[in-house]
């Protein structure tokens, strides 16, 4: 199994605060990998480092064998490595359809891609994906008028519209009601199995992540505390002490 994403000995500090220290992880192609850890343990910083939000201090980030730690955010996104945000981000002043229609993969710009109309197949795909996440009935509403949970679903659909190879999801189920969570897990799994999107997921909901992920990494204080299969992580004493708590 080849690793699609390889992070090696990544180090990132903000002044005196060390956010990530010697973090190494791998996402094999086609897999669902989980990233857990207490609040402030550096999970989102790691995401930001991977997608080029800020420069890293040392270490390497390779995506499909290519070193990407010096590329900027849009360039990395165009390679097929996409992330969603913890605080959901959508284009609030535009309708759901418009949100989707501006999200297909952005290749090299041409006059046509700049000024052309939205191709019919893009609109069709947008409708199909909105159907997939259950927002079809709301497709003409302003995205900013949707509830928080629906905005998360829209953001997920926008990410799929971009046809990523690897999707980094930052707490996809936070703030979503239990019924919707089950639907979301099902959709994440289908995105992985049917569309072939590899996933790296930050998640605090243990039943969700234990259920979804095939392999887990646990961060604490910016360092990798443990890694392994969900069962092994669940019973790892260090993880229990640092994060899960005894019960």
């Amino acid at each position, binding site marked *: 199994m080849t690793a699609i994403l390889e992070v090696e000995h990544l180090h990132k500090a903000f002044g005196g605060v060390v956010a990530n220290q010697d973090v190494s992880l791998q996402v094999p192609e086609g897999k669902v990998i989980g990233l857990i850890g207490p609040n402030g343990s550096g999970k989102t910083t790691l995401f930001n480092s991977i997608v080029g939000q800020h420069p890293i201090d040392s270490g390497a980030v390779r995506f499909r064998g290519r070193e990407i730690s010096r590329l900027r955010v849009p360039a990395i996104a165009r390679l097929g490595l996409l992330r969603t945000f913890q605080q959901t*981000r959508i284009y609030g002043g535009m309708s759901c359809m418009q949100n989707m229609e501006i999200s297909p993969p952005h290749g090299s710009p041409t006059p046509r891609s700049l*000024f052309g109309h939205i191709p019919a197949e893009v609109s069709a795909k947008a409708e199909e994906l909105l159907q997939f996440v259950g927002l079809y009935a709301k497709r003409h509403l302003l995205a900013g008028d949707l509830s928080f949970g629906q905005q998360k679903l829209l953001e997920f659909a926008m990410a799929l519209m*971009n046809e990523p190879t690897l999707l980094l999801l930052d707490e996809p189920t936070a703030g979503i009601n239990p019924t919707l969570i089950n639907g979301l897990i099902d959709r994440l799994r289908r995105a992985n199995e049917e569309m072939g999107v590899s996933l790296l997921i930050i998640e605090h909901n243990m039943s969700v992540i234990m259920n979804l992920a095939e392999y887990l990494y646990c961060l604490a204080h910016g360092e990798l505390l443990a890694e392994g299969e969900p069962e092994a992580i669940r019973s790892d004493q260090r993880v229990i002490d640092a994060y899960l708590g005894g019960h």
Partner: protein
Amino acid sequence: MSAYRKPLFYLALLALALAAPYLAPAIRTQMSFLWVMIVFALTWDVLGGQMGYNSFGNVLFFGVGMYTCAMVQQHAGLGYYPGLFVGMAAGGAMSVGFAVALGWGILGLRGHYFAIGTLGLGIAAAEFAGGWDYIGAGSGLVTPLYPGVVGARETFFYYLCFAVAAATFLTLRWVYAGRFRLAINAIRDDEDKAEAMGLHTTLYKTVAWSIAALFLGLIGPVAGNLIGFIDPRDVAFASSSYGVWMLLMAILGGKGTLWGPVVGAAVFHITQELFWTYLLGWQRVALGLLIMLIVVFFPMGIMGWARERWPERFGQRVDEGAK
């Protein structure tokens, strides 16, 4: 608007615009300036309304176009009309050049920082032009005399202003109908998200600013020749009048809509002319009061208010049209 009423509406507007100099020959110059104002508001709205970048420096492109054209007219040795039209083309090209060059630096600024960064542009340009002898420095430039018969000049410039305004409107209408508008709206709503999705944000921002610069660079020469005298501070780089009016008119009419800037410019220009005629001495006070009233009662602008009241007419839906 139903399918056949829309072209009728445009035709009626076109007929009115074409007939105007014959219907009201006494106010041809004021009507010419109405078209100039419409270009101001429309071009400001490309960044300010559609892209969320509030520029206080767009007047720079107006002045650059004006000076460039005047230089061509003075030094190229062409006849009056070729000189004017070549000058306009050069003015537009020069303004786009400025937009691209400045855009690389300034368009990296966000929010208030962009606004303040652009504020300096017009002021710096005025100081620079005021000190450069080759272009007349502080004493300004006189544009070439119009060669036609008495009275033909006003009509000619009226139609030229109208042509540039119509070209601006139609170009933006076409550009806004496609992907470009979605892209710049996405930048307005959340630029970080747009970047994270792989959008070519720098390219879109630069192109948007260049479109605004192009039409300002075309209308600048016309306005300069219409006024007949180019002063660096009061005509070409008039930050405190034209520069402020641009955004005022767009906000008044409703930013982020195609018609808002047109309506805002018309309301602003007509009331300004009326106040000037009937409330001389108090015209600026009356204008200030009007602006305050509109900001208080129509904070989204006239078209923005209309859009909230009749969202369906603007292509938005508020109910779940489940099919």
